[in-house]
């Protein structure tokens, strides 16, 4: 990281505020420094505390200046229309995740408008619970509220499960999520589980003919080498490694890598696709790190040709950062034409039983 010139600190002090010199160390440019200072001040104004506001602002700026992500400093991150609480030890929701979650929700809503049916969703590696919460909130908006929604979310970390449960209650209390009523019955459960063990079977999996409509996952997908070089400092030093890098020190994960002959950063996809093959959800969306990884995951989906998942899912797509942009280019992967949708960098792999 290049050194910031001292003149920039002087300018921050003169043009923004003395507090900005702390923030500048983490923000590295004047515009985002001014914005973050404003958000910190707004947060201080909005949350009552016996501590003197100026002192609180100064404290928060100092913590942020030490490189702690702003979301941990303020304790929240807006996600869609929701307010997601963030705590150290749980991954902070990213704007890219927000973009594809909203797009998935709009696809499901469109389907609901033509043929309303109960929905069942499974989210793995849920973290703060942002994906299931935003899906629930978007699907419950009036024009196409499905008759019944059942969402099940799993994570290995007890911290994540308690935070996700808290987020559900917090957003319901803020009236951003409607509570279940007889007209809109919905359940959302967070369970602690290791997805490398057999998945705990929630009731809706066991029902005869009970299918899952959507399987989503934002698994750890950074390789140990990329973690050391490509991640930003705030991520590397303050966000949980568990949520970012597949832990290759355990034999369960290395066994998968050996059995599927995949790179260490792709281990989770091997297991997730195994889950998909077992549960046969109608749609699957897996977040990935970049286009190369997306291509590798599509390769894993299409590995067995018509016999495996490739034959089951008629639509295999790669989504970019902004999948809502109507732009699809075709790309040939493992002998099949795969659509690359949207604009930005490769962000996820989308599988759908039907045609687009």
């Amino acid at each position, binding site marked *: 990281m290049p050194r910031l010139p001292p003149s920039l600190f002087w300018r921050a*002090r*003169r*043009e*923004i*505020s*003395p507090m*900005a010199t702390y923030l500048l160390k983490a*923000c590295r440019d004047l*515009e*985002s420094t*001014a*914005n*973050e*200072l*404003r*958000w910190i001040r707004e947060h201080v104004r909005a949350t009552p505390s016996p501590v003197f506001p100026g002192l609180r602002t100064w404290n928060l700026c100092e913590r942020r200046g030490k490189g702690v*992500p*702003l*979301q941990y400093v303020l304790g929240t*991150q*807006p*996600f*869609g*229309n929701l307010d997601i609480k963030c705590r150290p030890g749980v*991954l*902070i929701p*990213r*704007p*890219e995740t*927000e973009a594809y979650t*909203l797009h998935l929700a709009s696809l499901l809503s469109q389907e609901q408008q033509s043929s309303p049916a109960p929905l069942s969703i499974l989210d793995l590696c849920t973290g703060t619970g942002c994906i299931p919460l935003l899906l629930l909130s978007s699907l419950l908006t009036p024009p196409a509220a499905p008759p019944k929604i059942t969402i099940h979310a799993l994570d290995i970390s007890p911290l994540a499960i308690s935070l996700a449960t808290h987020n559900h209650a917090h957003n319901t209390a803020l009236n951003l999520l409607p509570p279940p009523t007889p007209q809109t019955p919905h359940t959302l459960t967070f369970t602690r589980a290791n997805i490398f063990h057999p998945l705990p079977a929630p009731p809706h999996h066991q029902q005869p003919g009970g299918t899952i409509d959507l399987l989503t996952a*934002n698994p*750890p*997908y*950074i390789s140990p080498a*990329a973690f050391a070089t*490509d*991640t*930003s400092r*705030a*991520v590397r030093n303050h*966000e949980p490694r568990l*949520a*970012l890098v597949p832990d290759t020190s355990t034999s369960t994960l290395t066994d998968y890598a050996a059995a599927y002959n995949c790179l260490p950063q792709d281990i989770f996809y091997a297991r997730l696709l195994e889950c998909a093959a077992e549960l046969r959800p109608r749609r699957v969306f897996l*977040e*990935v*790190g*970049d286009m190369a990884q997306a291509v590798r995951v599509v390769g894993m989906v299409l590995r067995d040709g018509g016999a495996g998942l490739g034959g089951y899912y008629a639509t295999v797509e790669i989504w970019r*950062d902004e999948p809502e942009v109507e732009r699809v280019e075709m790309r040939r992967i493992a002998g099949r034409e795969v659509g690359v949708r949207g604009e*930005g*960098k490769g*962000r996820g792999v989308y599988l759908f039983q039907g045609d687009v």
Partner: protein
Amino acid sequence: MLAAPWVCRSCARSLGRVGISQFSQFIRRASTGTATELPAALLERARKLTAEHEQLSAALETDFDVKRAKRAGELSRIATALKQLEKAKASLSELQGLLTSDDAELRELAQDDLEATNVELADSSHNLSVALTPKHPFADMPCLLEIRPGPGGTEGRFFADSLFHMYQAYCANKGYRTRVVKYDTMDNDGQTGSEGEVPLQEAVLEVEDPGAYAKFRGEAGMHRVQRVPVTEKSGRTHTSAVAVWVLPSFPESGNTDAESEWDNPESDFYINPAEIRCETMRARGAGGQHVNKTESAIRLTHIPTGTTVSMQDSRSQQRNRDYAWRLMRSRLAQQRREAREEKARQLRSSVLANSQITRGDKIRTYNYQQDRCTDHRSALDVHNLPDVLRGGDTLGRVMESVQTWLVNKDIELLIADEEAADASVAKKKGKGGN
């Protein structure tokens, strides 16, 4: 006779105190008078519309139709105003008949009534012209007040903040619902103005009540301030300016009418998504889990007109995007409307065109030394500047005077339009005859 065409009011008053009172005719008042005699073109139009109203009401008695009922409702105000006017005219001619009568007592009575009837006639002709003025198409909408300091130092920025708080307080006093859409300040090392203002860069205040556009329409333009800034050491008065723009806005709460209008290419609010370039702050490198950017700024550019909107107030990019789109729609709608008005103006006589106030002209002056606020259009002077800046009743008085001025302006334009239309018809006829 006096050389001066007028005498200022305080001089006239002091002259009056020493017994000289003949200057009353020279006092200049904030007059908003219009001609009492309506032009023939306007009367003709009123008669036509009244005839239409009668037809419509007759048709409505037999079968009801929502569209026709709406039109009849619009026209009813013209019909009643015309009826009133004709009544006043009839009584006037009757009185004039009585004036020529032989009975002295009767003449006296008629003389007494004449004045009242004249006033009534003036009132009703004014009412009729108000009724004839077409309602502004955005009049029923909520509005966005955009406040931006003019070129110059921090003094203008401080005053922009004062204006922002003035409108906010005014809305609070009047019970209008408001929302701060954008409030960008420069954090100048804790330096504040004389009343704790912060240097404002740009602010957008949304007044969410329907009909707010009509109420605030007159506020658009340059607001000039004259005062001694806190930074000024030798006590000189500085003049700076702040631009206020008033844009129509759509009510947010799921108004299906409004949303259908967004998709209607005929509407002023329609934007072809293909004409918008949307720029976001993209994280360098891989993105996703690799980085944790807090930048949520959105910039929209409307390519054909080059209008840009940038929004970075909220931490949520989604919310910034929504607000940016709304602001873009409002700005484009206003631009389209202004372009149409400009075209209409070119068709009118050039004399009137010159008296038009565009948003580049200064419309109001706030003078701190003289504790005075002057509106240059309605020529209204009010004192008690602190009450104006607190958004009190004094500001309400200024805004009302502007409302009246705007209505009279609209009437003048209407008359000019009618006359121009008549003239062109006559010309065509003349040509046809040859």
